[in-house]
């Protein structure tokens, strides 16, 4: 903000107290309200169960790099839900809109809702783009993208960024999809590959009975995979297979991974317990497989959090008493004073949190 505006803003704060000037400005336009928000400009149906939302953020937006994700806050039945979605458009500057692509996943409350009800004009809450699943700066090494299902979205962003910026790149893209109907961005990918001389390979695992990812297949399709900087994004099975293969070749440093869904393993159902929230004095009964973040939210608290999948450390809370179960590994741990990721940890017995 320029120095001329600052005294004016301060004056506005004195007039609007105890609210904010934004509390009144949003009567004119919801985008002028407090915090980072965006308006859906356009909804494009990509497949039967996937939509792209082009979102125009307000002036607080700091831009996104291709491959990053953005957290969207969506009000459903009056309740706000936050979910991360990968940016499927290329790089976006501070004044640019961006696009996320949302596939309705089984039992996915928010993704299903967005697929049914997202409309142009709707205003969503946003967080700044985040994530390290991005292209390196400077001269590009040879690249290999391995994607499956909606794991294509961040990679689509990177491909579009390469095309838009005209950066020279040697690209091999290996994509797995069950069938043609759910094969996202098929046309775009073909077009970009043709225009830029990239290799774009699609395996239709259900309709054509194509093989899933395996070492031999990779060797056949992309013999120089060892020389490439690799990116993988898709369901857990693919992530595990690819990282194991790179691990055995001692090349993990050359592999970038993006989990696009919380990788909560089905841990042998353990007992939960009573969760007490130290500061607020609230308490709730919690099942042994329910993330503490959700328990806290249902108890009416608003804990800080980020990815909701155990990767960003945005939700660390000090454990006061008791032990927790890490839902990604099943491990039970915890001593008073430990910082735990409440988005992927559940109560293992009675727990007190510093919330």
């Amino acid at each position, binding site marked *: 903000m320029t120095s001329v505006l600052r005294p004016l803003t301060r004056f506005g704060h*004195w*007039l609007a107290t105890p609210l904010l000037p934004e*509390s009144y400005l949003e009567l004119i336009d919801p985008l002028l*309200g407090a915090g980072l928000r965006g308006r859906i400009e356009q909804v494009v149906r990509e497949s039967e169960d996937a939509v792209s939302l082009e979102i125009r953020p307000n002036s607080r937006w700091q831009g996104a790099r291709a491959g990053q994700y953005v957290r969207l806050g969506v009000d459903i*039945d*009056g309740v706000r839900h936050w979910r991360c979605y990968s940016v499927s458009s290329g790089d976006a500057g501070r004044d640019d809109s961006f696009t996320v692509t949302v596939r309705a996943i089984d039992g996915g409350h928010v993704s299903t809702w967005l697929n049914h009800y997202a409309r142009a004009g709707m205003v969503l809450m946003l967080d700044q783009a985040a994530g390290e699943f991005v292209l390196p700066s400077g001269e590009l090494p040879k690249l290999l993208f391995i994607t499956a299902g909606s794991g294509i979205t961040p990679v689509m962003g990177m491909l579009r960024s390469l095309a838009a910026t005209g950066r020279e790149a040697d690209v091999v893209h290996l994509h797995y999809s069950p069938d043609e109907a759910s094969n996202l961005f098929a046309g775009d990918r073909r077009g970009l590959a043709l225009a830029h001389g990239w290799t774009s390979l699609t395996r239709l695992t259900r309709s054509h009975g194509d093989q899933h990812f395996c070492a031999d297949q990779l060797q056949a399709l992309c013999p120089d995979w060892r020389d490439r900087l690799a990116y993988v994004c898709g369901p857990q099975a693919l992530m595990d297979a690819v990282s194991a293969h790179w691990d055995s070749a001692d090349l993990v440093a050359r592999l970038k991974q993006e989990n696009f869904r919380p990788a909560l393993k089905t841990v042998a159902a353990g007992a939960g317990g009573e969760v007490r929230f130290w500061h607020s004095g609230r308490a709730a009964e919690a099942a042994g497989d329910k993330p503490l973040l959700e328990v806290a939210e249902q108890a*009416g608290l*608003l804990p800080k959090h980020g990815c909701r999948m155990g990767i960003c450390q945005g939700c660390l809370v000090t454990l006061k008493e008791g032990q927790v179960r890490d839902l990604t590994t099943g491990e039970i741990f915890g001593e008073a004073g430990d910082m735990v990721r409440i988005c992927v940890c559940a109560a293992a017995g009675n727990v007190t949190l510093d919330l």
Partner: protein
Amino acid sequence: MTASLNLDKKMLAAARARRLPVDLTDEQVQQFGAEIEALRKRIMDSLGEKDARYIRRMIKTQRYLEIGGRGLLFAGILPPAWLAGTAMLGVAKILENMEIGHNVIHGQWDWMRDPEIHSSKWEWDNVCPSDQWQHSHNYMHHKWTNVVGMDRDVGYGILRMSERQPWHPAYLAQPVTNALLATFFQWGVALHDVEFERVLKGEKSFREAWGQLKHIGKKVRKQVIKDYVLFPLLAGPFFLPVLAGNITANLIRNLWAYMIIFCGHFPDGVEDFLPEDIENEDKAHWYLRQLLGSANIEGGPLMHIMSGNLSHQMEHHLFPDMPSNRYAEAAKEVRAICQKYGLPYNSKPLHRQFGSVLAKVMRLSLPNRAPKQAMVSA
């Protein structure tokens, strides 16, 4: 119930049934509690889009009213504009404090997970800081409702509102004290949680009270600068009409809030309690005490909205974190449940409730005339 006390359950139950002035067995009280709990669950489970729309629309309406009122006051040199502007601003402040602020701070809208309408974030347009209010009101008053000596809202530490509070000659001035409290209600509310009487008795450290006072001072500064300096200055030559309008709007809000709140717990027929009445109190008995210790105001939708739905004080005390727009629905069922168990349902028009409050203020400024018919428990 504290299991470790290892008291005979039947004895306890008998003792409890005697303490509350109702003719119910312990079993009946438990059934009553279960029905109230079931009602609560049914309504809370049905919250959704419509409720969210209600509070958002209420907040929007309030902000338009405030802007409109302040705008009209800039033309306040014209008497009709001054009157309309002052009235609009007064109504805006009432809505903000009562239907929005009080209820948001109770956590009635926390289920929406919108940080802008959340009990942990809301700061209301009032000199009392929200966090101190949360302590004195949500905790002290709502948990210990009408327990003389524990609920400081029984007389607010300055009035004698129960026969069970010992009389003192200072209470002779009660009619005046009461009028002053009504006029400066927001200031009374702000200083309430400082608990001067406990500081004087040495039960609370001066240091703690001073910390609270500094916190209040910060809020006061902002509120006073806004209403009594900046907006009048912005009006330039019309400084005085705007200042007078703002003072009047705050006064309207003070008097109205005072009246509604006093009608909640002080009218005839509302019971008060002693600390020993609530020993070993369980949820069902807590519900019963909330019901017996509160009173409703009869009226239409406008009355309910303008009172922040404290016209449903009984439902508010049973379900302090239920969104206020649902109290009317809950009230029908609570009334039916009361009928079923032969419990009083104290709901009368404003003039009757407030009339009996004023009579009590007068009556209790004097010592108890004849010993009140002793409660069985006394």
